[in-house]
């Protein structure tokens, strides 16, 4: 059983105890603990259940590479699944629960999967999907859903908040071990602006734990001095708890800083995402120890040898009284020494190498520890935790020579450089035969905008494994990064360490090498996704030769740890099964983020009201106070209708339509796009932009225009008013102003740049009100001012003047079919103008109306709506708008495209009106079915509904739709099956349902 040692623990403050809860148990740790170290100190070896087989799992590692110890943190609004216990610092009141177990961690039903594991081989999901659909739905899916998944998604809104910082720097150094520190001091000495980030709360990394000596002093002292120097340097910025999450094109990097995870405090952001632009990036990200693949290597109590050392030195945690060390390299011998020095027993060091000689091995021997060369762990004994190991020869098949009882196993399969950040942006790797790992190829770095490399690696991340090599490499890379960033001040003397003598490691991918199937299916490669040696071998056997395919088939390396531990071991097993070299098989792609980062950090401040800016018209607040039921239109909110007390939305819409048709309605039309187009070539330009002829429009007059893309498809519509010879005001749809303005600018800047035209988007400069209905003129006359008579201001004209004491531009245009004036006033006077209209209109029973009433009234008139009748595949000719397409113009955007064979095909669906036989409302988007079936066995279709409403004016359902040969088929009845199985019959009629002669609008 793991426990706390009586003394030691360099991170601990034993004077400050910390209470926390795990699975409802109240436990106690010290300030400075991680959740993992505190759990181990409390004897809590079992921390979770595995993903697929629900096997008991314990803590394996001590840092960001941990695959097993994932917990649910917090409750309700602070709940977050899949948090690593190894990187979570302990705080008072910490609340954690284990995940992936049911009904309890100790007794788990899903462990049954363990006994049927023969039936859950790699590719289980692919194979099962092939089964009859009914079996999937009724048998497999319910079982898989109950037992699968890592953690549960949070249900409540996140209580915490997050922020983004943007920063530019000369050199970003990722990793605050001795390599990062050495690189930083040299880069800073050269005069570069340096940002140095470290993912843990502590500087110095492994060197301090491993007792290295630098410049003749203990590494801990050198680290302390160096950090102090860097803190005092004006050109260095240091951050701890800040992880380099990703490296992207042209020196862009993301750094994920966990501000308050270690000490939650309301009012402070939880995470901060640094968005860094660096001229040079140095990844000093160290190396990760590889597990060894022996049977039972996933039992709680089996840990990485380096992690065991960390727990002893940093947190005074004993993994157990008796720890067997198993290794293929010298480094694990340090663990044996550390345990011995802490007063614990090491029954044996099992070394797979047949012989090896070095000072550290001698030291272990001198400490009286038994060393077994050429030996292997045949299997780990124990059910829920380690009880012993079977000793076998590495060369053999796993016959147990001797059983050694123990509480823990410390394993080391060698070290792999953390190449993730180097690889994110295209840095290439080379296979290092001697260390059996991939390391960065310094000749093929990620390239920046100037074509030169912008990422370099330092220390263990480069593949340097001794302190002396790490320091020499990092010192040089720090200098080189600063020089590449344009700084070349004097070089400092680099830090030095004694050269170490180490015996060569020996790659061991399966232990023992001749293990049979029974042992191989107990050798875990990917702990998190439950992938074993036997799974990868099966995949290879079934023909998955590409490493990327094998990864997806077996899910090796696809869990939240992205295979930090299993990558090389899995590759080696695959390459062995394929009888190919590891470099030939290659690695899978490393993708950011390095470890998972919170969605909150990605979103930053962009949430709730600040997610997207809200555009408000001058009358927005009035609408809000007067029952507006909002509809989002682009970034605007427009009232869909104004609900009165006790009124349904449908009732409100009907009331608004009726009141407008019968008396007087007001519409806030401010959101309509208003683009001023000015210059000697403005008419010529608009002739290209619109399908209509605009250059012939007389000043003082308005014309409805259509815009198409160069593809010929209808893109926008609106009324154009000619202000004077040189000036036009183009109205666009509400959502379209920015898009259409950009469209105009694109053509002006990139095709007709010699034309003298200037465009300005004036949308927000005006508040615009549509005054609509039979009483529209009367209310304006009541307010007084300019002459708005039919003679002075005929239909489709505009005039500047005064309405009351407002400067106004009045357009006689109508989108409702009623007498209508659209009046623009200065935006800041919009509310006052709206109030004046309401006051004067009171005697006519004036009512504001919303977008739905607008839509119904336009549909009654057969006017099209961009986005309803058009969808990016519709040309104006489909909509019977030939009258708006100039035949005189030689050219306009879309003209050539509309001459293409497909566009002139008489079989294109065309606009008609649709009237249900029983007066009901057709379902929106419904298709009219025709004769026969298509190649997929679906019924053929011959048309579809584009707009559909209940018309209060006509007292029945009306619709518009596109129908093959529609205009030639007036009176024919079509069948529109609904998704509810009902059939809806509708007759083809003219799309103009109301006042076809236009007598009402033209008065």
């Amino acid at each position, binding site marked *: 059983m793991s426990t706390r040692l009586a003394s030691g623990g360099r991170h601990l403050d034993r004077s400050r105890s910390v209470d926390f809860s795990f699975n409802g148990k109240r436990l106690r740790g010290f300030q400075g603990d991680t959740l993992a170290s505190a759990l181990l100190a409390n004897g809590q070896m079992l921390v979770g259940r595995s993903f697929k087989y629900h096997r008991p799992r314990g803590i394996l590692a001590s840092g960001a590479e941990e695959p097993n110890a994932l917990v649910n943190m917090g409750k309700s609004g602070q709940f977050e699944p899949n948090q690593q216990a190894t990187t979570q610092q302990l705080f008072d009141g910490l609340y954690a629960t284990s995940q992936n177990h049911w009904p309890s961690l100790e007794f788990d039903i899903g462990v049954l999967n363990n006994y049927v594991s023969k039936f859950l081989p790699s590719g289980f999901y692919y194979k099962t999907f092939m089964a009859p659909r009914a079996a999937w739905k009724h048998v497999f899916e319910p079982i898989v859903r109950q037992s699968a998944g890592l953690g549960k998604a949070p249900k409540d809104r996140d209580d915490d908040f997050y922020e983004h910082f943007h920063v530019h720097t000369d050199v970003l150094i990722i990793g605050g071990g001795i390599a990062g520190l050495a690189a930083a001091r040299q880069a800073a000495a050269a005069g570069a602006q340096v940002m140095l980030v470290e993912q843990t709360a502590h500087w110095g990394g492994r060197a301090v734990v491993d007792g290295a000596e630098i410049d003749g002093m203990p590494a801990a002292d050198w680290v302390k001095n160096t950090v102090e120097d860097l803190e005092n340097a004006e050109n260095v910025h240091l951050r701890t708890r800040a992880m380099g999450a990703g490296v*992207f*094109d*042209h*020196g*862009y990097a993301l750094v994920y800083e966990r501000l308050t995870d270690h000490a939650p405090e309301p009012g402070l952001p939880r995470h901060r995402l640094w968005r860094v*632009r660096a001229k040079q990036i140095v990844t000093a990200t160290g190396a990760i120890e590889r597990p060894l693949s022996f049977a039972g290597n996933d039992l709680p109590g089996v840990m990485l040898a380096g992690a065991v050392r960390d727990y002893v030195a940093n947190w005074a945690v004993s993994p157990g009284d008796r720890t067997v060390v198993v290794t293929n390299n010298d480094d694990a011998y340090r663990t044996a020494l550390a345990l011995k020095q802490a007063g614990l027993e090491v029954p044996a060091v099992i070394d797979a190498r047949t012989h090896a000689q070095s000072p550290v091995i001698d030291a272990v021997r001198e400490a009286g520890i038994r060393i077994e060369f050429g030996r292997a762990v045949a299997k780990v004994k124990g059910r829920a935790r380690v009880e012993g190991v079977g000793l076998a020869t590495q060369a053999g098949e796993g016959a147990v020579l001797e059983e050694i009882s123990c509480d823990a196993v410390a394993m080391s399969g060698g070290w792999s450089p953390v190449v993730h950040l180097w690889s994110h942006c295209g840095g290439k790797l080379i296979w290092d035969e001697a260390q059996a790992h991939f390391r960065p190829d310094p000749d093929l770095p990620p*390239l*920046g*905008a*100037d*074509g030169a490399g912008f990422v370099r690696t330092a220390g263990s991340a480069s593949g340097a494994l001794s302190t002396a090599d790490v320091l020499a490499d990092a010192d040089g890379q720090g200098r080189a990064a600063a020089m590449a960033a344009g700084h070349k001040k004097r070089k400092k003397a680099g830090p030095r360490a004694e050269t170490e003598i180490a015996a060569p490691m020996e790659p061991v991918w399966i232990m023992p090498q001749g293990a049979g199937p029974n042992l191989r299916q107990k050798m875990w490669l990917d702990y998190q996704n439950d992938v074993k040696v036997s799974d990868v071998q099966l995949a290879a056997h079934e023909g998955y030769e590409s490493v990327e395919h094998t990864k997806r088939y077996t899910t090796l390396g696809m869990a939240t740890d992205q295979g930090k531990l299993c990558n090389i071991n899995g590759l080696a097993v695959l390459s062995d099964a394929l009888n190919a070299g590891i470099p030939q098989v290659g690695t899978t792609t490393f993708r950011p983020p390095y470890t998972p980062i919170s969605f909150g950090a990605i979103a930053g401040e962009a949430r709730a009201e600040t997610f997207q800016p809200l555009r408000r018209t001058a009358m927005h607040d009035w609408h809000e106070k007067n029952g507006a039921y909002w509809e989002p239109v682009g970034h605007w909110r427009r009232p869909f209708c104004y609900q009165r007390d006790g009124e349904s939305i449908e009732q409100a819409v009907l009331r608004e339509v009726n009141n407008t048709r019968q008396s007087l309605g007001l519409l806030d039309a401010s959101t309509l796009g208003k683009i001023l187009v000015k210059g000697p070539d403005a008419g010529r330009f608009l002739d290209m932009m619109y399908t209509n002829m605009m250059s012939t429009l007389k000043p003082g007059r308005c014309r409805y225009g259509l815009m198409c893309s*160069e*593809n010929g498809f209808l893109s926008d519509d609106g009324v154009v008013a000619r202000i004077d010879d040189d000036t036009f005001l183009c109205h666009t749809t509400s959502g379209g102003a920015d898009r259409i303005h*950009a469209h105009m*600018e*694109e053509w002006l*800047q*990139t*095709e007709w*740049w010699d034309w003298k035209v200037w465009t300005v988007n004036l949308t927000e400069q005006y508040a615009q009100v549509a005054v609509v209905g039979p009483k529209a003129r009367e209310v304006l006359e009541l307010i007084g001012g300019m002459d708005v008579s039919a003679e002075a201001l005929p239909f489709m004209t505009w005039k500047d003047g005064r309405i009351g004491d407002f400067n106004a531009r009045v357009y006689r245009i109508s989108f409702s079919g009623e007498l209508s004036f659209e009046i623009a006033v200065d935006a800041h006077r919009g509310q006052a103008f709206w109030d004046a209209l309401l006051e004067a209109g009171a005697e006519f029973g004036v009512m504001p109306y919303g977008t739905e009433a607008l839509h119904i009234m336009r549909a009654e008139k057969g006017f099209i709506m961009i986005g309803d009748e058009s969808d990016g595949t519709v040309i104006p000719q489909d909509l019977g708008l030939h009258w708006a397409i100039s035949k005189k113009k*030689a*050219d306009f955007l879309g*003209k*050539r*495209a509309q*001459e*293409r064979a497909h566009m002139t095909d008489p079989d294109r669906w065309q606009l008609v009106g649709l009237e249900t036989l029983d007066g009901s409302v057709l379902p929106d988007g419904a298709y009219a079915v025709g004769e026969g079936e298509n190649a997929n066995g679906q019924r053929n279709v011959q048309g579809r509904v584009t707009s559909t409403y209940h018309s209060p004016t006509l007292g029945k359902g009306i619709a518009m739709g596109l129908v093959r040969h529609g205009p030639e088929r007036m009176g024919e009845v079509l069948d529109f099956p609904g998704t509810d199985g009902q059939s809806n019959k509708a007759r083809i009629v003219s799309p103009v349902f109301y006042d076809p002669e236009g007598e009402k609008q033209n008065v």
Partner: protein
Amino acid sequence: MLILHCPYCGTDADETELAPGGEAHLKRFGPGSQDADFEAYLFARENPMGVHFERWRHANGCGKWFHAARCTTTLEVFGTYSAQTLDPPQEIRDAITAKRPGWRWRDFA
């Protein structure tokens, strides 16, 4: 995330400030053109590994369109220049030649 220099306002703009506009130096075919020419103008695009010419707009900046000459495999940027030209300027071609001798893109070299 790319950085491109906007030749109008002089800013080294982050990709988030920019809107992509596809291939540069397209020749417009209008009414009266052959079907094949028009189709090529609308739809056929270069998709090179290596030197490429693109249109970009400094959309969240000065609003101006410009052209960029860039390598699609290494993301190296050879230069940016005004969109108000039919051909890449000589200094841009020289900059590409210095890095990619013998380059060819459509009719340019």
